[in-house]
């Protein structure tokens, strides 16, 4: 077995030190080593983006990044959105607009939407559809998801 590698990753603002096998995927580090199970494994084949997290501010598929590659970087997971017991405006909007059915894709949708709105405070419907084009909702609830993202972008509470 390949030797373990020390890593230090800032996750949701907290520094986490660990020794990991090089083949450990970031998603498994987040879920199993850190216990942050909000990030979901959907397809496990880099297609669905249920596992989306922010890595140094960019939304990525955490099943397609090695944990060692996150060494020295900053990760934000869905657990990092709410602050002080208050839901983030993105989460509020998904709640208000019924932007989820089964909810499995939701953590990834939230992270893609969060990255989209941070980069573009006033996205058009087309911008939103492009922004979430990598995230698959198997319930096909896209209409409500797009409405939720649109509503979130209008929130003053960012």
């Amino acid at each position: 077995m390949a030797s373990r590698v020390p890593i230090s990753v800032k996750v949701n603002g907290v520094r986490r030190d660990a020794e990991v096998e090089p083949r450990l995927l970031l998603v498994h580090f987040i879920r199993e080593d850190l216990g942050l199970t909000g990030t979901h494994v959907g397809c496990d084949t880099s297609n669905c983006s249920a596992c989306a997290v922010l890595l140094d501010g960019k939304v990525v598929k955490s099943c397609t990044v090695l944990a060692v590659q996150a060494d020295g970087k900053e990760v934000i997971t869905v657990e990092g959105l709410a602050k002080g017991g208050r839901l983030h405006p993105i989460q509020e909007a998904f709640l208000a607009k019924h932007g989820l059915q089964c909810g499995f894709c939701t953590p990834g949708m939230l992270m893609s939407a969060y990255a989209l709105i941070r980069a573009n405070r006033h996205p058009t419907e087309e911008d939103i559809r492009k922004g979430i084009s990598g995230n698959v909702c198997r319930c096909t609830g896209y209409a409500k998801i797009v409405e939720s993202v649109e509503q979130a972008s209008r929130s003053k509470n960012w």
Partner: protein
Amino acid sequence: MLPPAFEYAAPRTLPEAIELLKSRGDGAKVIAGGQSLIPLLKLRLASPALLVDINRIAGLNYIEESGDSLRIGALARMAEVEASSIIRKKYPIIHDASEVIGDPLVRNLGTLGGNVSHGDPSNDMPAVMLALGAELVAAGPGGSRTIKASEFFIDTFSVALNHDEILTEIRVPKRSPRSGGCYLKLEQKVADFAVAGAAVQVRLGSGGDCEEAGIGLTAVGPTAIKARRAEASIVGKDPSDRSALKELADIAAEESDPSTDIRGTSAYKRDVVKLLVGRAFDSACERARGDS
């Protein structure tokens, strides 16, 4: 799914990375964005003993025009290529392709260097580089060498890099007046591999005739294909001549070599090539005229 076990190194300099590759022979593999390689590892279609992660090497991520070239560092992320104003304004064929590779999350990590050097015939940038007549710069133990895109793609997942060489730069000839290009791809859904794709770059003469054409095809053969006979067929012709355009598209379809698979039959894909080459040629000419 877990990848097979491997050792991992993240060198800080190019010479260190090359030394690691040299010392391990065929057992080492370079990882850049990882958006093709990590899925392959998870499916156990690749099992390198050592992964050499080049992401921590400084100075390989740039997009700039200098001298007679557009130079793109191998670690430029696809999202950065997509956002580049130089590329959008002056090299729209590259911008076209950057928008349809994978999905936004893949493009945040996936690199231009990886897309080209992975050697997957379904990747989009190889055809674009063939159409543009690009050159690829490889660094190895003895220094750097330049390889023409037309000599780079050897076979499926096989390119003209030695095991101890790393692609460091993609060099595209600086845009000449009255030139333009376009990349079109048919895909069944976002982030799927192409059914087929066509890259066309043209340079028009002052009278509007086609002086030079570069044509690359995606996903219709063991490698990206340079449609040389189709290129030659249109030179000297009037781009608005529809019979010349039909001949161009027919020849490109003949030069393609698609397989029947879940994305369609070989005959269907040849028809798609005809359609895409024709449309991409028209758009390329329109862009070239807009640029005079």
